[in-house]
């Protein structure tokens, strides 16, 4: 059966990449079992699957001289995921209730350790590398679906939260109760593109003055919903990021956004990019968008960061964590024709490219309606 999966995977990717130049997969003779090899787009490493079936996958990922090894197993609604990287073992056990238990420890002696920025970068790179495979096959490969979602969770995991922890399923919001799929901007919104904006906020210890109610002393810093800790108009989509630290674009209007990280600026109300609102670090395969994940993104992208020593966004992470693994995907993958991130056009596209029916332009100072026709 494994060979069958692999063959079908190869056919898909061969045709997909001929069209779009995305990730590619190929078969490699591997003795009794054929391997599936995925070359990540934009030189982001090489994934090799020794096994890739609905019930189980196993393989490795090579990037920047590091090797990450992984397994994922699906058995009657229960999932086991194990990853080793940089001398650390990460383990996840997912129950049918929607609750899950995580663990992480030193591979050498079994003692506790913590997540680091390098770990997150490597895990996120793997999730990114698997994006095209996920979108093509995750619906038929539960082991792959849960594996990619778990990578998304670990890629956002703060240094300051213990790796050994149980996360409980939401009692009141199982299913799609907290999903923001209806607010997600995705292709097919028609030639009359109507942007959908969503409100996001967070609380933290940021103090903006002594005599103010906006992130003031009465609330011991920013309260959830304060002007300076709130973005009124987040444009959620599977839009890629820019080249700045967080990869997100912010502005005071929908026409002047640029890639930078504002620090609780009450004038900044518009934001988009790097899959803002997705459960997971930046863009990746799975497409859950929820209020908790959006609030977490708004927190880490607005003057805080994932490894913040003040742990400002840990409560947002704890709130969002269960959404990464439990909720249904929203879909909404974009076909980007021109990604200007990293170029001189980033945040400075000619105005004539906007909504001009000339292909989807990404990473501009505006959101191009052509991406959502």
């Amino acid at each position, binding site marked *: 059966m494994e060979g069958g999966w692999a063959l079908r995977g190869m056919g898909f990717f061969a045709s997909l990449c001929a069209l779009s130049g995305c990730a590619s997969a190929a078969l490699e003779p591997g003795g009794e079992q054929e391997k599936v090899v995925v070359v990540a787009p934009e030189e982001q490493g090489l994934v090799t699957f020794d096994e890739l079936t609905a019930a189980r996958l196993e393989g490795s990922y090579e990037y920047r001289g590091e090797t990450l090894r992984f397994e994922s*197993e699906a058995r009657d609604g229960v999932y086991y995921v194990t990853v080793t990287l940089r001398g650390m073992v990460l383990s996840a056990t997912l129950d049918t209730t929607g609750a899950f238990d995580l663990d992480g420890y030193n591979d050498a002696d079994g003692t506790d350790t913590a997540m680091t920025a390098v770990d997150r970068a490597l895990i996120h790179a793997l999730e990114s590398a698997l994006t095209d495979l996920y979108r093509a096959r995750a619906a038929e490969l539960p082991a792959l679906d849960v594996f990619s979602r778990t990578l998304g969770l670990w890629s956002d995991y703060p240094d300051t939260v213990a790796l050994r922890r149980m996360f*409980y399923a939401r009692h009141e919001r199982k299913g799609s109760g907290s999903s923001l799929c209806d607010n997600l901007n995705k292709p097919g919104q028609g030639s009359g593109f109507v942007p959908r904006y969503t409100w996001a906020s967070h609380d933290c210890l940021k103090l903006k003055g002594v005599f103010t109610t906006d992130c003031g002393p009465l609330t011991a810093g920013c309260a959830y919903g304060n002007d300076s800790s709130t973005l009124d108009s987040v444009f959620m989509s599977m839009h890629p990021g820019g080249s700045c630290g967080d990869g997100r674009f912010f502005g005071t209007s929908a026409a002047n956004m640029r890639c930078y990280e504002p620090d609780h600026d009450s004038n900044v109300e518009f934001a988009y990019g790097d899959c803002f609102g997705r459960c997971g670090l930046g863009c990746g395969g799975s497409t859950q968008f929820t209020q908790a994940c959006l609030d977490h993104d708004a927190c880490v992208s607005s003057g805080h960061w994932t490894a913040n020593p003040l742990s400002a966004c840990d409560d947002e992470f704890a709130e969002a964590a269960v959404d990464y693994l439990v909720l249904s995907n929203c879909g909404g993958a974009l076909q980007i024709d021109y990604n200007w991130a990293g170029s001189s056009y980033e945040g400075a596209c000619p105005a004539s490219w906007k*909504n001009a029916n000339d292909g989807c332009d990404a990473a501009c100072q505006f959101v191009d309606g052509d991406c959502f026709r």
Partner: protein
Amino acid sequence: MNRPKAKVLIAVFAAALLVAGLLFHRGSSLRSLAVSEASVAPAAQPPLAAQERRSAAAIGRAIPLSELASARRTREEKATLAVESEAARIAQREAKLDPLPWGASRPPPAVDGDHAVSKSEAALPAAEKVRQTESMIERLRERIARAEQPSVRPASLVFDGSSRARERLLARMKRRVAELEQSLAREGPGATAEGQ
């Protein structure tokens, strides 16, 4: 022309002016929006040029037909530029990753003293929390039992299949089961089942 007729005509003329004014006002405000909010879709299938013109107009920014040819030309130019931007993007990504401490040894565990509890977890009924914890204990026991079966291939046994790696993972899972059981026994309903 009698006076009532003139009044009607004047009223009709005024109404027409009002409607025209409203329409004009709406159109100009749409154009002034940074992101258009019009939503007019073509009903039939006109020729391509007309389609492009109509859809462009529908999103609030009309493109004259004379500009469409140049727009098509720029697609090729843009494609060339976009390829160049990919190379720059890769270089920038790697430059961002370079300063990270790739060679650093593993850090100690997070203190997690101020354990962040989510609002949804805090609102979880005690009985539901107990149910989920008990179910998780069962899942972990199943995973341990499965891992201990010599006939089962080394699933979730940390890859190299070495006995030491296997023992470490099993020991961690067993310890976790004990922690969850203790938290249930110690605190009863409403117990939290956090690590350490």
